[in-house]
């Protein structure tokens, strides 16, 4: 029984499983493009897409668009967190706040971010502010919902234990409720982050002159379908990178929890 061999075998197996589909898809895509089954104007070949990426990397468009998008995303998300977490805590903890915000949130929360774009442009014009507004809005809703839920459903037992151990009623919120609700809040942050990319792309398509969303939109008008694909893939990469970072951050913060996957 040489233990080395099964390790190598399982590594190869995993490589095949993980890389098989993407490599196969790209190969099939390239093949279809070369044969002419897939005309250029519908979907450019992988080589054209790479060429497009090289082109915008050289002329600096890529850096401009990426940095614009990342700046808007980070700013918007930070604003959403700073506003939605405290409000969510207040709504979840104080019954009167919950009642007084009930109908407002009931009507406002189901409005998709895309429906806010006109108002955003009206208020903030074309540019960063509109995009940041929509990112923040997109992130805020899941953060709010999950924070409220987390605070509302904190196990009463923790509160009773804390009270009998000498915690004053005013300290309960910070010492017990907040850490107990943390898994739910972090889930909200992660869902909010995912949601915020839709806000960013829409805002940049209509309400900005830079960013990956603008790249996707503009390349259609310019008939550059290769750059359109580049833009879409960039959004995918930005989204999954930020999601991984967020997941890492929650794992670090929730080391105490045996099951630290609270995501969907």
């Amino acid at each position, binding site marked *: 029984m040489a233990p080395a061999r099964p390790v190598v075998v399982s590594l190869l197996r995993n490589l095949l499983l993980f890389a098989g589909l993407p490599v196969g898809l790209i190969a099939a895509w390239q093949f279809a493009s070369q044969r002419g089954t897939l005309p250029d104007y519908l979907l450019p070949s992988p080589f054209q897409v790479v060429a497009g990426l090289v082109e915008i990397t050289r002329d600096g468009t890529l850096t401009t668009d990426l940095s614009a998008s990342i700046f808007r995303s980070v700013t918007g998300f930070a604003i959403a967190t700073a506003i939605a977490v405290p409000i969510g805590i207040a709504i979840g903890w104080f019954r009167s706040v919950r009642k007084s915000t009930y109908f407002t949130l009931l009507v406002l929360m189901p409005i998709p971010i895309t429906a806010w774009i006109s108002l955003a442009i009206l208020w903030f014009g074309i540019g960063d502010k509109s995009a940041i507004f929509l990112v923040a809005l997109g992130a805020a809703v899941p953060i709010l919902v999950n924070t409220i839920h987390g605070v509302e459903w904190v*196990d009463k*037992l*923790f509160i*009773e*234990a*804390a*009270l*009998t*151990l*000498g*915690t004053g009623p005013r*300290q309960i919120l910070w*010492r*017990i409720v907040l*850490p*107990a609700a*943390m898994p739910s809040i972090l889930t909200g942050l992660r869902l909010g982050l995912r949601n915020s990319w839709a806000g960013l792309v829409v805002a940049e398509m209509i309400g900005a002159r830079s960013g990956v969303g603008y790249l996707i939109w503009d390349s259609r008008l310019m008939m550059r379908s290769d750059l359109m694909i580049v833009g879409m893939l960039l959004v995918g990469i930005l989204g999954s990178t930020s999601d991984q970072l967020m997941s890492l951050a929650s794992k670090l913060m929730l*080391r*105490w*929890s*045996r099951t630290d996957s609270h995501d969907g």
Partner: protein
Amino acid sequence: MMGEPKIRARGVAKHYRANNLDVRALDPLDLEIYEGEFVCLLGPSGCGKSTLLRMVAGLVTPSAGTLHMDGRLITRPSPERGLVFQEYALFPWMTVLRNVMYGPSVRGLGRAKAEQLARDQIARVGLEGFENHFPSQLSGGMKQRVGIARVWANQPDVLLMDEPFGALDSITRNVLQRDLLGLWMQERRTILFVTHSVEEAIYLADRIVVMSARPGRITAIVPIDAPRPRNLLDQDSIALRAHLTGLVEAQVIATSGGRIAAKSAVGGYVE
């Protein structure tokens, strides 16, 4: 035991309102518990044992009557009356050390003092080496040891324990009973201990307070003078067990009226 009782309940009753129905959980009862006494509350499920304990803790307000500790009215929770939960209720986001330090630090004893107290208590319950574990990494028995250490670190005058070993397997349960008794013999704090195990009550208590089925009343108070540690298999214990089992099961039969309950009573112990 004479003099002023540590805890005095006078006409304490509780009814809950749930779904527009009045639930009489506890009928008016009087009870005195003296300094350093180990009292077990024994009664069938739903008879209001937890309710009574929570009222003593100050978490629940009585619907009638008064509760005093050292002659002062109990109106709210206080670290003088520590509560140990059947569900442990450890803070899962804190390590064992942090959990046990929690009481002393929240009372403002200062970090170093709190940590010293906590480490002492962790050692007393035999959990040295587990200071940096999280509750999710512990077994049930270890969790309850932390629960006991956490309350004891506050040096409460009265320990309230609500079926603390109810969720444990019988071997772990026996070990924890023995260890709790050991802790109590070192430092005689007043303990009010809820259980529905007759054996547990006989093994631990100075006095057993037997309660009726809901609405709870006190049906008997049985003092036990036998020296500790007690052997549950000796003649006196067996007789006591039969007596108490009869008292408790009479309550179950009285309310259920069902044949199943009656049968189990008859099959059990005969006085």
